């Protein structure tokens, strides 16, 4: 457990760190310095008689502590990109590195939050949040304390012993977020995490996420189809082209969080991004 073997590289004894605290591996990387590199990512889906190029030449550098949103026309491969980064899907070519470690398979250095929550229904909230630490072999007392800390951070301290089916959609996704954060991953991947929630809950969840991010400077890649959500949350918005998706434009979003949703400068940016998206649809 104490030694992490990675392809082409083996962390030395001094770099040894528990697998449930992968952020410690990268603590020397300063805020804003690149922590993750995605180079020339290409994903091809093969069926019996056809090949579909889902993602073409996707290159992105993610700074530490940055919150990047990926928006694009529907069905363009946003989720494919995220799943490739998570290691759940083997890209056809290209390279994804965190620090100097290449990511070829899933690992707790990249946490993931799913649109449909993907919580374990037979576990309580607490046990769901503990899962990653449990498989990493964290002692019981410690994982309980750490899990409770994050359950509190997402405002579910009264529901630690509840079962998943007793929770509302918003509460379920709070568990999903706590479960990803508790592992201290280098990067958190969020796949339309608020897509299944109603507009009101969505706003509340966005505000909660902002609060958490401001407290603990997390690096997040956030896939969404809502331009408003992207503008409210992120430092940069990556606009994808239609399939095969590649980066069409990257838009910097100014201003510190928490932001004012009604700020006129966002209206301008919103117009710009929607314009980009419109173009993607017209080209079809």
């Amino acid at each position: 457990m104490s030694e992490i073997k990675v392809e082409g590289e083996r962390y030395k004894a001094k770099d040894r760190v528990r697998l449930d605290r992968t952020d410690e591996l990268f603590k020397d990387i300063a805020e804003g310095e690149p922590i993750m590199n995605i180079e020339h990512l290409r994903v091809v889906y093969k069926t019996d008689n056809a090949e579909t190029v889902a993602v073409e030449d996707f290159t992105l550098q993610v700074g530490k502590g940055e919150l990047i949103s990926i928006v694009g026309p529907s069905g363009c491969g946003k989720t494919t990109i995220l799943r490739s980064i998570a290691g759940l899907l083997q890209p056809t070519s290209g390279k994804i590195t965190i620090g100097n470690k290449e990511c070829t398979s899933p690992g707790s250095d990249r946490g993931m939050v799913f649109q449909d929550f993907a919580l374990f229904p037979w576990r309580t909230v607490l046990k769901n949040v503990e899962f990653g630490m449990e498989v990493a072999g964290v002692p019981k007392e410690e994982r309980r304390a750490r899990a409770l800390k994050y359950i509190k951070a997402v405002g579910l301290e009264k529901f630690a012993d509840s079962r998943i089916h007793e929770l509302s959609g918003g509460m379920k996704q709070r568990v999903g977020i706590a479960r990803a954060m508790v592992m201290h991953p280098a990067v958190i991947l969020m796949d339309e995490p608020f897509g299944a929630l109603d507009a009101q809950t969505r706003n509340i969840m966005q505000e909660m996420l902002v609060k958490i991010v401001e407290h603990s400077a997390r690096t997040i890649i956030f896939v969404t189809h809502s331009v408003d959500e992207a503008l409210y949350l992120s430092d940069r918005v990556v606009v994808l082209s239609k399939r095969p998706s590649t980066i069409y434009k990257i838009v910097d979003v100014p201003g510190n969080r928490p932001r004012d949703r009604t700020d006129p400068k966002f209206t301008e940016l919103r117009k710009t991004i929607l314009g980009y998206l419109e173009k993607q649809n017209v080209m079809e």
Partner: protein
Amino acid sequence: MGIITVTSLVCFVFAWWDVALVAGSVAIPTPAETWDALVELYNHGDPITGKSIWDYIGSSLSTFFKGFLLALVVAVPLGLIIGYWKPIREFAQPVIEVMRPIAPIAWAPIFILAINYTLGPVLVVFIGIFFPLLTNMIFGVQKIEHNLIDAAKTMGASQLQIFVKVIIPSSIPFLMNGIKIGLGIGWMCIVAAELYAPQLSGIGFYLAEQATAGFWPGAYSAIVIIAVLGIMTTGLAEYIHKFVSKRMGVDA
């Protein structure tokens, strides 16, 4: 029990009574005669073998649970393995499809005569419960939500951890469903198997013995016992199914 349930059962008893009186055949005793035979068995036991009602019930129950436990021990791991690994599934599926439609009772004469009188009925019950358990397990493992496996992977779980901590728990509601179906079939098997087995034990034996002796109320009282025990086991299975489903976070 609701009023309709009670009415239904009362109507059933009266209909039985009516048929018995109209038919006037010794082969159809009235509910009262059957009840008397049941009380007689309860009070004095079976005069032919000298066994008590509890000997018969105990013997049947013991055969039943042995067969059930055996099925559980074999079907659960096998179902997990077959459901999880596709090549094994492709290998096993044809055999399962050939074996599954065979009525478990068809094995009774073979098992009882080729093996022995005590193990034979156990094996018949085993076969009866085994296939519903196995097919439900295989189905359950395949039905697992793939996102749950993905979530476990992104939290650093190994293949073995995914198997133990995700696939097994998520297949338990399906296992419970298999148990529910299996117990029902198991009860049909046990009595049929005992009919074949001249082992002087079990409700099925008592039924055959009474019918052979021409003591029809005794045979009918055996059927009543079988019905009551059947309802009790399936009721118990239903209760456990609901309880477990709730615990596993699945709506029962």
